[in-house]
């Protein structure tokens, strides 16, 4: 019998995409090797006919697992968690799991989409580039204030105790975005501390934008 399965996992990703960053972290944490396929969002590669065949939504990340295609970072994270339950991205206790999901959904639904590139372009068109930056900062800070309060009673080295969870995998890309939009992280000492610890972990380091094959520095 075979002792290693020939699994071909591919990830369509953009180095600076925080949604892709989340999935890269999960893959690294679970020790899953994959082929990195770069889609440059700044160059509009997501709108190519070839990529639209892979994902009609024209978004990254997209995971292709032996031909099975799934997009949307949260759907991918849940799929990976079910297919590779060890190491787990969730605590065992059902209440803690609910709180992990609360943090994850807060970031993926109520923070990141509001500072997504498409939204910011619209704001800039409507109100100018100053408003664009203020808009992004407002929604990130708004979300971070609530997270800072919630995690006060839960955090250890990570968001929930000392064990890495999906909350951490989703938080650190959002902190990257916060830094990009010049949010003052000194206002959020707990999130700053957690992020500082998480980003030094080897599987998070491997997932960072600057470590990806398609990395180019962001324009200032």
């Amino acid at each position, binding site marked *: 019998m075979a002792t290693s*399965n020939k*699994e071909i996992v591919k990830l369509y990703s953009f180095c600076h995409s925080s949604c892709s960053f989340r999935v890269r972290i999960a893959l690294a*944490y679970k020790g899953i090797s994959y082929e990195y396929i770069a889609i440059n969002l700044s160059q509009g590669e997501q709108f190519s006919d070839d990529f639209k065949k892979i994902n009609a939504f024209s978004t990254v990340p997209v995971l292709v697992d032996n031909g099975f295609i799934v997009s949307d970072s949260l759907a991918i994270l849940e799929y990976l968690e079910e297919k590779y339950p060890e190491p787990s991205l969730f605590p065992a206790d059902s209440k803690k799991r609910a709180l992990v999901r609360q943090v994850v959904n807060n970031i993926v639904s109520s923070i990141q989409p509001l500072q997504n590139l498409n939204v910011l372009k619209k704001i800039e068109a409507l109100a100018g580039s100053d408003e664009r930056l203020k808009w992004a900062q407002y929604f990130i800070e708004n979300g971070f204030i609530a997270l800072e309060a919630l995690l006060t009673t839960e955090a250890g080295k990570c968001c929930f105790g000392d*064990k890495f969870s999906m909350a951490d995998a989703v938080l650190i890309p959002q902190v990257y975005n916060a830094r990009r939009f010049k949010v003052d992280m000194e206002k959020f000492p707990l999130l700053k501390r957690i992020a500082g610890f998480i980003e030094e972990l080897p599987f998070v380091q491997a997932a960072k934008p600057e470590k990806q094959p398609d990395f180019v520095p962001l324009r200032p």
Partner: protein
Amino acid sequence: METTGEMSEVPQTLKLLSAWPSMFCMRVLIALKLKRLDYEYQEEDLLNKSQFLLSSNPVHKKVPVLIHNDKPLCESLIIVQYIDEVWPSPPTRSPIVPADPYDRAIARFWADYVDNKFHEAAARLMRSPEGELQEQAKKDMLGCLAVFDELLRDLSLKGPFFGGQHIGLVDIALAPYLCWLHAFETIGAFKLLDEGRCPHLCKWANDVLENPCVKEALAIAPAYKVLEFTKVYRSMALGHE
């Protein structure tokens, strides 16, 4: 999971000769599951060992034995380290045995401590009638757990496990004893793992038991079954004195 190369892979076979109560066998099971390996499990009756076991481990005649492509490997920690070497984890995931030589030496030191100090004392508890010998064994076991608790407190660990965010060698060496806790505490009529005295070790125990691979491996030896087994074992051991 391994990355696939262009070469076709040679089919590999893995067979584990095991006995369900054995914490040493559970160590190997944890490692096999962590690496997501396919293996055949063969249960051995330790009172009636198979010829295959005796010929695979003629020196010690013990389980676990891992047969990899018809080559036998013996001694649980040696097998676990072999598994980690032959099926290395991707670099983003901590290996079972640390990559850094110093960290590796420290991990091996503590795995050795589990065997030569903690297990040795536990074996004495199992073999001794009530009285001075048993009291000394209990004291020594409690002493070992206090050392582990302090270790968890002092090490600037990168996570809840001795191995950091991922299960490592020391976690694998120690975790199977959690199946035997109930048996130890019943035989010795004492509280071995106490939250007041060893809060960090208790927390570690909760975290390590949540790991799906550990949970699956330890499921072969539920606490009540281990207790029944130890009662039989003890009556045999004491009967021989």
